[in-house]
């Protein structure tokens, strides 16, 4: 058993080095940064609109915006399930206010007529594109100077007004556009899907259908632009201030159903269909919680967590040594190994699933010191009970184990149920608490099986313990047995 444990420890350490995970990833509350939690705002009667796909779409939109900040290790992720799903945005460093402004905007899908196009960079001005009716000189100047190669111009603010003529980039930043006012809105789309046209070879297309209002608006705009020269016969699909696609309109479409064809790959077609489908349900978000932690406070919190951990561990060690004497060293050893495994797991999980250690997580680990030590106490006391029944130490270690094992398994399993439920029902950062608590309970179970019990078996063969030395924790005196052996 002890050999297996040593092997596992060595394997984990090797893995840590192979993976290059040399430091525990710290949460924003420990190193400073901004985190924003967004909750979907559910309008009355629209409860069904918060689908996983809609949330994923929103995550993609917000991620695009956050990435434009260019801060390394920014994260956008969805948490939770069903209607209570939330989006958590975390950005390290002091970009606080910009992040908060950026992620709060609602994205809406709009169809706008293309008035002019140009290559993405500002230096290239296409003179032929400029004189379009309805475009002011200001817009022309802005268009000429607009540089889509700059990340900040591609962040998509969602501040574009439907009635506005605007200058925008496509998502990749290759092309810039002057776009007319919005003519069809995302919520007027009733359906969108990607399909494969088997007759014309393997060409992917996106088909979409409009509701009544949308059919009329789409018919009007298509019949007007279809006869116009390039690029004015293009209708841009604009999401969040960025052009997703700008298909050419080849005919007036009064039927309310349309197909977008082009040299799409399967992935591109599906992406576009998703944009059309879920852009059609502009999810509005409430800022549930915004937390800005300065790096100074982060460092303070990390220190406090570590000090509390050291203090807690120290007190438990002193108590077990005082009460169980030399036997307490088995507990100390178990705690040390549990701590080592936990640290290695933090490193590896940081690499594998992006686990970050938060203040609440540290608290969970400290609280778990108690859980770990509790298991030993249950076992040791059991062994002592067996000895009170008159068994020798060597027998007691075995018979006591059989009985204690049951108790420990049940008790740890209860802790585990608590941790799992806490994890799924906790909001925001406190999940870290449940996670480390659950993790350490599992470690505790492993340790008591592969270390504490074998260690006690080894120890029970030593004369120091079998003879009931008064510092061994097994002396008849400390057991409260009638004095027989003591000299």
């Amino acid at each position: 058993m002890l050999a297996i444990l040593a092997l596992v420890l060595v394997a984990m350490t090797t893995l840590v080095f192979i993976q290059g995970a040399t430091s525990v990833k710290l949460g924003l509350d420990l190193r400073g940064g901004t985190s924003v939690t967004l909750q979907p705002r559910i309008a009355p009667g629209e409860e069904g609109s918060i689908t996983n796909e809609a949330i994923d779409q929103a995550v993609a939109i917000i991620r695009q915006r956050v990435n434009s900040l260019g801060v390394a290790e920014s994260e956008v992720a969805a948490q939770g399930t069903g209607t209570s799903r939330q989006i958590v945005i975390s950005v390290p460093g002091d970009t606080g206010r910009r992040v908060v402004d950026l992620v709060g905007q609602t994205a809406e899908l709009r169809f706008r007529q293309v008035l002019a196009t140009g290559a993405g960079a500002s230096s290239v001005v296409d003179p032929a594109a400029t004189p379009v009716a309805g475009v002011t000189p200001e817009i022309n100047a802005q268009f000429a100077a607009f540089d889509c190669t700059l990340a900040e111009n591609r962040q998509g603010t969602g501040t574009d007004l439907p009635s506005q003529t605007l200058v925008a980039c496509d998502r990749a930043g290759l092309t810039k556009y002057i776009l007319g006012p919005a003519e069809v809105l995302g919520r007027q789309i009733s359906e969108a899907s990607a399909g494969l046209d088997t007759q014309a070879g393997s060409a992917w297309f996106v088909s979409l259908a409009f509701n009544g209002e949308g059919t009329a608006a789409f018919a009007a705009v298509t019949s007007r632009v279809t006869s116009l020269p390039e690029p004015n016969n293009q209708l841009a699909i604009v999401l969040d201030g960025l052009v997703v696609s700008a298909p050419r309109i080849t005919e007036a479409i009064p039927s309310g159903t349309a197909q977008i064809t082009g040299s799409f790959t399967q992935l591109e077609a599906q992406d576009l269909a998703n944009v059309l489908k879920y852009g059609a349900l502009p999810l509005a978000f409430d800022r549930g919680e915004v937390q800005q932690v300065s790096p100074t406070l982060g460092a303070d919190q990390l220190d406090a967590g570590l000090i509390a951990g050291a203090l807690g561990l120290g007190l438990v060690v002193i108590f077990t040594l005082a009460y169980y004497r030399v036997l307490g060293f088995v507990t100390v050893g178990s705690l040390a190994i549990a701590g080592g495994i936990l640290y290695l797991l933090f490193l590896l999980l940081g690499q594998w699933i992006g686990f970050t250690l938060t203040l609440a997580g540290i608290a969970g680990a400290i609280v778990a010191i108690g859980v770990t030590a509790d298991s030993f106490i249950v076992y040791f006391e059991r062994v002592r009970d067996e000895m009170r029944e008159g068994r020798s130490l060597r027998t007691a270690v075995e018979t006591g184990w059989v009985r204690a094992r049951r108790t420990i398994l049940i008790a740890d399993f209860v802790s585990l149920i608590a941790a799992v439920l806490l994890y799924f029902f906790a909001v925001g950062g406190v999940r870290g608490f449940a996670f480390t608590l659950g993790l350490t309970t599992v470690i505790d179970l492993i340790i008591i099986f592969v270390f504490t019990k074998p260690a006690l078996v080894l120890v029970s063969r030593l004369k120091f313990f079998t003879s009931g030395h008064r510092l061994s924790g097994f002396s008849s005196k400390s057991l409260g047995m009638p004095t027989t052996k003591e000299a």
Partner: protein
Amino acid sequence: MSKFSGLGGRLYRGETSIEFIGKRRRWYGVSIMFILVSIAALSLQGLQLGIEFKGGSSFTVTTNSPSVAQARSAVESAGVAGELIVQAVGDNKVRVQTGSLETSANNAVQDALAASFAVDVATIDTQIIGPSWGEEITRKALYGLIGFLIVIMLYLAMALEPKMAVAAIVAVVHDVFITVGIYALVGFDVTPATVIGFLTILGYSLYDTVVVFDKVRENTRTITASSTKTYSQAVNLAVNQTIVRSANTSIVAILPVASILFVGAGLLGAGTLKDLSLALFIGLIVGTYSSIFIAPPILASLREREPAMQALAKRVSARSGGVVSSTPSQGSSTPIIGRGPRNQPKRKGRK
């Protein structure tokens, strides 16, 4: 310490016995009193909810010269009306809490504080909570609580005995209720971290109860076959046998929690660490109490109603020549309380 360990041995053999079951009316009485006080505190005072539940903003400025008055005037100059809570945190921080604000107003407050204390805006620690956030947390916590109780009840019913599951759940609900009551009474702030603390108590309080009940189960497995002990007496012996264990596991659980509380409250002032550990600290103490004084007596009460156990009680009482009463009491065959260390053979000094 060795005196205490010797006590463990006597408790194990039943030479020293504390009446946990026989005197259960007394313990029930104590708990009912606590519960009544909790109900009174909750209904009269209510809980002191943090801004996480009400919605609002909190700004913490770290500065060498923190001044509550200066912070207040800075925030008021930013045009924030309504309720303001301004307090000093530690010796170099001042915290301002406001009601729900628009984004622009939040920025204005940050700017005003930064200008007033001559610090960079980025060094101000800010927390903004939307108005519907609290409902979300409360709802989830409630689901968590209900889910936990159901799952645990089923699990304990399977792993131990159905009536043990019931007794354990009653004890756990008792713990959470009294802990929440203490919060209402003292007026501690309730934050999401506190709620998580309350939920964690559930798991912790059960740990001790499980240890006791597992021993009860072992002691009573063949109890109806003999007629030496009633069920209640067997439970009482189990509690006495595990009490040293319960005391030790509780101490070991409380030590780390106490150090988080000490460091969290001392170094950081208010925050996740303090809120979480305070709830745990109170809950652990209440949980230890209930795993000894509440859960086993309830179990005994439940099981003593069974015909088999009543028959057993009759047999035991016939053997010892006592009177059978409906409330199980310690028969005269059991050792007497108070046979303390002094009556034990003196072993000290013989060494």
